[in-house]
Each structure stands twice: as C-alpha cells, then as structure tokens.
C-alpha cells in the first residue's frame, strides 16, 4: 500500500518568507508526527497529532512554527518569517495508533533551504 507522502520534496525560500509543508499519512493511521533533521544529526521531534488535535507540541522551537491536521488525515506544517537556521529536512511519520510500541513509518521528507 501507499506509504507516507510529503510535498514538496524540496523547497527553496528567502529569509522572512512563509512556507507550508504537507504530509499525507498512511490511510487509517490515527497518529501523525513531525520531526526535523539537521545535517549530520538524528531527527528531532516537533509535534504529535492524535486525530485532529495536537497532543504534544513541545518540540516546536518557537511560535513561528505551527501545524494543523483539520480532518485527522493530512497535516500541514507552517513556518512564518523563515530564518536560515530553519534549513533542514522536515520528516513526517504516522502510526496506526498512538503508544510506545507502535511503529512510526516515515515519509521521504521535505528538504527546506532558506537563503
């Protein structure tokens, strides 16, 4: 079946601009996660959705970052007033259910470059 998909695959923007990154989880998966992976590092957690609500947004670095999942499926990560330090690969993952034993399946990521 189809895996997690993310669009765009690459995004180049200028400092100060607004960007939206989209994630389409595996069909039927109730939990959705966003991570950020900087060069040479492991992914770092940003936010977790259970259904439509953000159950844990403790990883969002500041209030320029926001994410939504209005219908409990597709999610959009929104970054306002982008900074060069926001350049990274943004990964989305989904799992059938929440909970520690569940496997998170990752999408291919969106590579964001802020000039």
């Amino acid at each position, binding site marked *: 079946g189809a895996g997690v998909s993310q669009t765009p695959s690459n995004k180049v923007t200028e400092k100060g601009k607004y960007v939206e990154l989209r994630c389409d989880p595996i069909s039927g998966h109730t939990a959705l996660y966003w*991570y950020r992976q900087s060069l040479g590092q*492991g*992914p770092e*957690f940003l936010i*977790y959705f259970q259904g439509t609500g953000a159950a844990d947004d403790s990883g969002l670095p500041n209030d320029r970052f926001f994410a939504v999942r209005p219908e409990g499926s597709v999610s959009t990560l929104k970054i306002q007033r982008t900074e060069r330090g926001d350049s990274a690969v943004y*990964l989305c993952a989904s799992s059938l259910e929440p909970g*520690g034993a569940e496997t998170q399946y990752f*999408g*291919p990521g969106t590579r964001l470059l802020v000039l």
Partner: protein
Amino acid sequence: AQSVAQPEDQVNVAEGNPLTVKCTYSVSGNPYLFWYVQYPNRGLQFLLKYITGDNLVKGSYGFEAEFNKSQTSFHLKKPSALVSDSALYFCAVRGRGGGYNKLIFGAGTRLAVHP
C-alpha cells in the same frame, strides 16, 4: 530524560563479514527500542523494534538486534554484510506510559561495507 548514544560516527566492514552498530540508551523504566535505516535522499525505513520478551529481535534484510538491560544497550547486528547495506543507521528510544509518544534518536552511524 530520555537519550540515545551511538558512539561510532562510522563503521567500516568488509563484505561478507559480520557487522555491529552500537547503541546505548537512557530512559526511565523499560524502553521501547527501534532501529531505522536511511539511504541517501530517502526517508527513514523501519528495520526492527524491541517491545518485550526475547532479547534477540529479528528484523528486515537479515538484521537483528540484542537488547541488554543491564548494559542499557541495543546493538544492531548482521552475520554477513552486503555492499547494499551501506547507509546511515539510527537507533531510537521511546519510554512507556502516558506522554511518551515521540521517538528520541541517536545521531546516527554511517555504515560502509567494502567489496
């Protein structure tokens, strides 16, 4: 606080030889442990996980990992390495109980298998 350490930035092994990629963790209580592999310009692919029970976990592509509670380790192993195993490997931990939804990743270990 939860943390994962992958002490080796890179592991080099000859094709056909056994390989080990090391991982140690720190978490309160019993952990859930995961290994993922990342190929260039690709997302993370799930390899295997430890939930409970048998300390030796078998996963995809002939990989296995051994959970050692006393040493707080979860090393990834394969009896006979292939050149196609060359990739970036990430160990991740997740605590049990409410609030433990995010994965905490190590920094990654690059595996290079030489013909």
